């Protein structure tokens, strides 16, 4: 007869996206980003302790951090695991672009977003804190949705619409269009159907 020791403990769902501060980043800002991933993408988000500033990804000639190098580090994990969203305070660039608000591997494991350009209004004056946090939420949602396989959307009100500047970003609402929402639903189902992708956290052991 089976004893309670033979029955595996109940499994609670583990994190589906890890939110990782890279260097000095406001804890409130990180928490806001994680909460929006939870609420609007329906992903279990876990905020990890900050990692050291990725100074080796800094480009002296550009005076910015290379988003591509940061993504390579974030996605370097031995086993399939949760998605990873890095949040950094420095300005980000790609070799061919003057700057990016964030960058992600389409259908991949890692994304990174920057707070650097979100602090200011178009005229250069400081933006209200609430607006900064909302901008961070939008960029975090956009880049994480790229990880779920969504490409840019041409719908004017959709979070997947490309934002070339702060004015574009501020015009976006905190929602996805119906077509992108459908894709997100399917992507979440695929994510949860693949046990390798989402490692389960063990429940409490036998008493």
């Amino acid at each position: 007869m089976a004893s309670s020791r033979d029955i595996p403990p109940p499994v609670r769902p583990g994190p589906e996206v890890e939110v990782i501060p890279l260097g000095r980043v406001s804890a409130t800002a990180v928490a806001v980003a994680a909460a929006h991933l939870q609420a609007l993408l329906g992903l279990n988000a876990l905020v990890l302790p900050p990692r050291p500033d990725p100074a080796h990804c800094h480009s002296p000639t550009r005076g910015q951090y290379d988003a591509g190098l940061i993504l390579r580090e974030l996605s370097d994990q031995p086993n399939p695991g949760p998605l990873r969203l890095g949040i950094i305070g420095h300005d980000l660039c790609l070799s061919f672009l003057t700057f990016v608000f964030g960058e992600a591997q389409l259908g991949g494991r890692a994304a990174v977003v920057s707070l650097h350009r979100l602090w200011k209004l178009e005229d250069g004056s400081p933006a209200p804190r609430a607006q900064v946090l909302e901008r961070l939420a939008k960029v975090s949602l956009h880049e994480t949705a790229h990880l779920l396989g969504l490409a840019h959307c041409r719908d004017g009100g959709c979070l997947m619409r490309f934002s070339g500047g702060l004015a574009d970003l501020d015009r976006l609402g905190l929602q996805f269009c119906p077509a992108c929402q459908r894709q997100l639903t399917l992507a979440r189902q695929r994510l949860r159907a693949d046990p390798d992708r989402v490692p389960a956290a063990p429940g409490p052991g036998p008493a």
Partner: protein
Amino acid sequence: MNSRLRVLLVDDELAMRESLAAWLRQDGHQVTKAPGGLEALAEMEHQEFDLALVDIKMPGMDGLELLRRIKDERPDTLVVIITAYGSIESSVEAMKAGASDYLLKPFDPEHLMLLLEKMARQRDMLRENSALRQRLSEGECASYAGLVGQSPAMQAVFDQIEDAAAAMAPVLITGETGTGKEMVARAIHGQGPRAFAPFVTINCGAVTETLLESELFGHERGAFTGAVKARRGRLEMADGGTLFLDEVGEISQKMQVALLRVLEEKRFQRVGGNQYLTSDFRLISATHRDLTELIRQGRFRQDFFYRINVLTIVIPPLRERGEDILPLAEHFLAYFAAQTGKPKPGLDPRAQRALLAYPWPGNVRELRNVIERAVIVSQGSTVGLDKLTFLAPTPEAEPASLTLAEVELAHIRRVLATQGGSVGLAAEVLGIDRSTLSRKIKKAGLRKT
């Protein structure tokens, strides 16, 4: 406007190629990478590209040389030169050689986005021009070419075409052979928002299943014996436009499953390929078969039928809309007279009566052939009855001096023609039993067709 582009990215620097390709894919474009000019030209042998992004400084063939080669061999492919070493001279040289734009790295993300949108608009304009040139060379109006009709039945079809053109749902067109199903499909395409995008057609009954698969999905190099290079399929070619599946009732069950998957998932692979491709096409299908009967017989899948049959247009046979016969005949007389360089002839009264009395088993296609032949052989300004060659004689072809037996025989011939030579069906139409009809046929020496 379909803003997705097929992009060829040419840069000798791996990191640059990978990161820019990733960024373009995020924006929904289909990207092929090449590390140099020769590799780029090799890729262009296998597929068409809307846009080539070319780094100017590359070992071997540099960007300007590649630009010239692309403009020679694929003039419709837009080229944007990218460089980190800007100079007025090189930019002027690039534009003179046919570049659409010239970008200096690093560029502003909004600038890049606007450039891609501009390239998509230029691509669409090139397609429109190409479609217009083709239509001019065909010499026919795009929207209702050949769809002449003043009968209530055809007026209803025209209304349905307008409704279908405005919608994007799949359309199934049914009707006997020769009723103009492809013309209706082209009219739907020509009146819709994709009028200047490709109209890609394939006759599913004209090819084997294996060939149909390759024609539709395309294939990669080496996918099968004889596949010496990769080839785009009709699904890819129809991207942004319309795919017309003619004789869809002839498709095997296996192909129906494959197509159903494409229609549901919006993606597919080439034969022998492992990369998923997408194509945004509007589907129009046509058949002369009764698909509900084929479903009942287990030869056509119900789920596939429901997927292709959101809108239905039934084209009535010509014999059921007699008021369209003479207008169609006049239309074809004008068309073929122009083609042959003759003045447009008229129809004498006996010819008109014969056209009206004939049952037209081959429908509009047969009428077109009859008129074409008549225009070619006619010398004067009028087409007489003697210049009309039908599949079976009409009552107007027989003078009033015929005996009853001769009239009966002519009628038997006509009915047999309309029933495809079936004695059983002809007997039903004539209201006599089969054995009686067989005896009359044998006595008259008529050969059963």
